[in-house]
Structure formats: C-alpha cells, structure tokens
C-alpha cells in the first residue's frame, strides 16, 4: 500500500481549521488568537526544518553527523527539563543534572536498543537512531522534569522536617528518604498510567503514524510495544538518577540541607 502523499493544499485545509479556531477565540475574547496562529506557524517551520535536516542526515548517514544531531537534541532536552522547574538548582550543575538524567533515560537506552534489540547495520543508521532517540527524549522528559520539580519543591516546603531529622542524627539520605521515594513515584506514575491506557483509551502516536504510513498493524504494534518498554525503563532509570544527583547537590558533605543552591526568586 502506498502512502497518500500530502499536498500543500491538503495542509492548507488543515491549517484553515486553526484560523477558524482563532476566529472563535476572538469571538469568545479568549485572547489566544495571536498565540494560536504564532505557535501554529512556528510549529510548521520547526517541523519543516527538521524534515530537511533529517533528509540530509539520512542521505549522509555518517556517525559524526548522527552524534552531532543527537547531542543537540540531548542538550535541548536538558534545557527543557530545567525550564519546567519552579525552583531549579542554579548554575551549571542544574543543567548538568538534567542533561545527565536525560542521557541515562534516552541516550543509553537508545544505544542499547540499537545494538542489542533492533541490530540494524550499522548501529547508528539515522533512520532508526534519530527517531528512537527523539521519542525517548520527548517521552522521558516529562517524568524526569516532574520528579526534579517535586524534589526541590518538597525539600523547600518540608525543610523544617528534614532539618529536624538531621538534628536527630540522621544522615541526609535518611532525612530525605520519604521525600526522595515520593518524587521517584511521582516521576514514574505518568508512564505507568500510559502503559495502562495504551490501546484501550489511547492509540499511541507512533503506532498510529506507522499505520497511516502503511505498516501492517501488527508490525506497528510490535514497535510500539518495544518503544513503550524503552520509555518506561528509560523514565525509571532517568528519574532515579535525577533524584540521586539532585540529592547530592542539595545536601553538602556536612549533611546540611543547602537550599541556597535553589533559584527561588522566580518561584
């Protein structure tokens, strides 16, 4: 089955729905019409650019370019995780924690999947590596950002309790144990819920896309299952390492809670 190629006219029809929506927004004085049009346009430009980049990348297929592209994606994801936090750890260490956690959750899992599971030749074939990495980055980001945000927020809000426990001679690990496990649970819940709902409530986007692209449903489903497993595992490992690293940053070697490493002005 061939894919029905979309013409500019087809996309323009879909875009007219957005224009309609912004008209409605104006009628209801929601004040969103500019945003809808602006971000709709920006999304189009972003995706067109990435389409061109991917076309170039797929044609070239060198390891260097694939690595360069994945590094850019990783850094962008780290920045996004950092931006989603209310009370973030200031300075370079905050970014490093976010980037390292995303590295664990996505980079390592992608390489593992390419080498051990998909076993495509060569392992860095961009048609596999880049979408896989993007999928993992995008989907594990939510959990990691959520867990880190909760960690700093909880330590800030419950500092009296934590310091009381330190005063009773507990180590920082003991004093923050409840908070840390709570944050890890928070970070992992969305993906667990997504697994529960997959196929029943929601048809995952990647599978839907493959089916629209002409892949037989069972093949598409197998890939989706693989992706779900990778996302769940990546989220879990990423969340655990993010919380672990945040803990080391938020407490010092004298087992003191150092909230001065948090940026609270914007909170």
């Amino acid at each position, binding site marked *: 089955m061939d894919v029905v190629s979309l013409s500019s006219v087809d996309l323009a029809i879909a875009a007219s729905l957005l224009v309609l929506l912004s008209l409605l927004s104006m009628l209801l004085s929601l004040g969103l019409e500019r945003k809808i049009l602006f971000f709709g346009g920006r999304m189009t430009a972003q995706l067109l650019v990435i389409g061109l980049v991917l076309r170039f990348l797929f044609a070239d297929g060198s390891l260097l370019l694939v690595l360069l592209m994945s590094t850019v994606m990783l850094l962008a994801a780290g920045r996004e995780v950092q931006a989603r936090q209310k009370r973030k750890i200031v300075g370079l260490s905050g970014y490093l924690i976010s980037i390292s956690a995303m590295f664990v959750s996505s980079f390592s899992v992608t390489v593992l999947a390419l080498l051990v599971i998909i076993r495509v030749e060569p392992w860095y074939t961009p048609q596999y590596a880049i979408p896989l990495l993007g999928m993992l980055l995008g989907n594990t980001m939510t959990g990691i950002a959520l867990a880190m945000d909760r960690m700093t927020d909880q330590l800030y809000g419950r500092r009296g309790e934590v*310091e009381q426990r*330190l005063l*009773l001679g507990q*180590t920082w690990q003991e004093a923050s144990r409840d908070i840390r496990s709570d944050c890890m649970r928070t970070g992992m819940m969305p993906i667990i819920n997504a697994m529960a709902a997959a196929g029943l409530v929601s048809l995952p986007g990647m599978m839907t896309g493959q089916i629209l692209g002409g892949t037989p449903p069972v093949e598409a489903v197998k890939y989706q299952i693989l992706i779900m497993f990778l996302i769940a595992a990546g989220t879990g490992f990423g969340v655990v390492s993010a919380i672990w690293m945040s803990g080391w940053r938020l407490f010092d070697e*004298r*087992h003191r809670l150092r909230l001065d490493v948090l940026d609270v002005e914007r909170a």
Partner: protein
Amino acid sequence: MYLFVEHLTFLDKGPYSFAVEKGECVGLTGRSGIGKTQLFRAITDLIPAGGEVFLEGIACSACNPTQWRSKVTMVPADSHWWHDKVGDHFVEFGQSPLLRDNCELLGLDAAVLDWQVSRLSTGERQRLALLRALQMTPAVLLLDEPSSGLDAYHTGLMEVFIEQYRRLNKPAIVWVSHDPEQLKRVSARVLRMEQNGLYQST
C-alpha cells in the same frame, strides 16, 4: 571547658564566643530576629559558619556531622513530625516505661505515644519534641524557647523536668527565652545576644 564556641560567625553576625561547663545551664536572650535560632543552627552545623565549636576539646569540623548532631542537638521552637503515629518517632526507646514516665512528668497523657500526630496540640508537640531529642542522651542541649506554647503550670513542670534531667545526665544546656524570670529560675547566668557578639547579662 565542655562546650566551647569560638569566634562563630554566620550571615553577617558575630563573632560569638562562649563556653558552657558540663551540667551547666546557661540562659540566652536577645531581641526577636537577632539570630538566636541561627546561632543554634550554626552550633549544630546545620548552616555553614566561620569559627569553630568544640565539645570536650574536639572540633566540630573533625567530627562526623551526624554524630556531632546526635551529641550536640537542638530542640527547635516549632517541632516537626513525619510519621503518622507519635510513638513511631521514638525508635530507640520504643514503648519503654521510662518514656511513659517522662510523659507523665511533663503532664502528657500516658497514652500520647499511641496517638496520631494530627491530634497533638502545640504544647504537646513541644514537650514531645523535647523527649524525642533526649532519647539520644545528647551532651549538649540547645533549647529554643522550649515552653513558648505552654501554660504556667506546664511550664513549671517542664522547668522541673529539665532541672532533674540536668542533675542526672549532666548535659550542657543553653536555654533561649524571652522571659527574664524564667531564665533566672533555670540558669545560673544569662548571655545577651547582639549583632556583634554575646554579652553577660546583669
């Protein structure tokens, strides 16, 4: 010297120097916001500070911080609780008869350890926080307005209780209070805290 605080500086305050002998209770006073609690936090090594604190000649910086805090501990004015049940905060003593006796000496209900924390009043929390700190038998006890949530009767009970504990276990005690009469009752001498140092109060 048992507890010796030497040129302690933190934030933009200090230097603070003072010594407390074993089994001695020293009063500490000073206007609200001068940093009495922060001084205690610096002595227990909860905040970074300049200078040094010694216990029996051993410097804080030479000690493991968790061991230091179980020897040099503070009872904050507002106590915090994290388990649902009161008794779960008393691991070491468990449900020992001594702990129950101490509860009664402080005028607490004998069954208080089986209660939910949410049921406790401010005054009950304050007294239980003291007992919780004592289960480590600290060598230095820093009390931050320990009776601020208590009525006159229970304040009296607490003063007697701490006095007896001091005679028996000989800790060094620093007692923060805004009540000069109370400090006269419980301590032999009183220090007044100012921005730039501690002064003998007369």
